[in-house]
């Protein structure tokens, strides 16, 4: 039974045309952002929030020439781009569901545009900053 059901396909189920959802795209970006946030963000926060201000490794690692030189390398810039952009989509997805969950469900279309829109703007800004980096 289940197998036959699958063969019908959900696009044209029982003669009713169903709209194809764009949800999988947002969900993939959300999941990628979740992984990147989980793996990279806590250690970076420790470095900029504790190691650097308390000079646990001295001033030397954070001198301008060293950090600037590292970011000049394209691979580092691609990594930085991923670390900033994907978590923004992770945030957009979760913040949208927070707002829906606390009673704003009827505004969902507007909320979706604002959440994903700000993630897209953030991504574009990040791309510009890193592309023009010199």
């Amino acid at each position: 039974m289940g197998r036959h059901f699958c063969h019908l396909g959900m696009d044209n189920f029982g003669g009713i045309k169903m709209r194809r959802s764009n949800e999988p795209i947002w969900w993939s970006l959300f999941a990628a952002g979740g992984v990147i946030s989980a793996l990279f963000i806590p250690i970076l926060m420790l470095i900029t929030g504790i190691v650097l201000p308390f000079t646990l490794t001295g001033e030397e690692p954070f001198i301008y020439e060293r950090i600037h030189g590292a970011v000049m390398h394209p691979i580092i810039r691609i990594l930085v781009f991923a670390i900033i952009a994907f978590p923004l989509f992770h945030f957009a997805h979760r913040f949208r569901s927070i707002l829906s969950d606390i009673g704003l469900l009827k505004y969902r279309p507007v909320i979706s545009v604002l959440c994903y829109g700000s993630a897209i703007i953030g991504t574009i800004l990040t791309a510009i900053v890193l592309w023009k980096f010199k």
Partner: protein
Amino acid sequence: MSPYIRHYPNTWWLKRRSYFLFMVREFTSIFVAGYCVFLLYFFYKLSQGPEAYYRVIELLKCPLSVILHIIAFIFAVYHSITWFNLTPKIFILRIGEEKLPSFLISGANFIAWVVISAILAWIISVV
């Protein structure tokens, strides 16, 4: 025909501990995204030359920055832990007929977390 919408109070997530923790998990994304906006600001200033860069470094040394970092760090770690524990529910690996036990998948994630953190800390602060 309009879809049926069940009405519930907007404070439903305060009713139970598990609901509340779910909401905390969702809120972690705000702190992580806020930090990403800071990173964007950091790299923008870095591109503007040494003076702009050292002003950001001075900013990072003020107590408010340290406090914000510590709060955000707690939420970020909570995200990491809940995310790794969630992974086996989404990512199901089968070896033949057997399902790979979930502790192996989340365990692999935790190991990756430690390794990546160590490598990043080593490259940024020591090398």
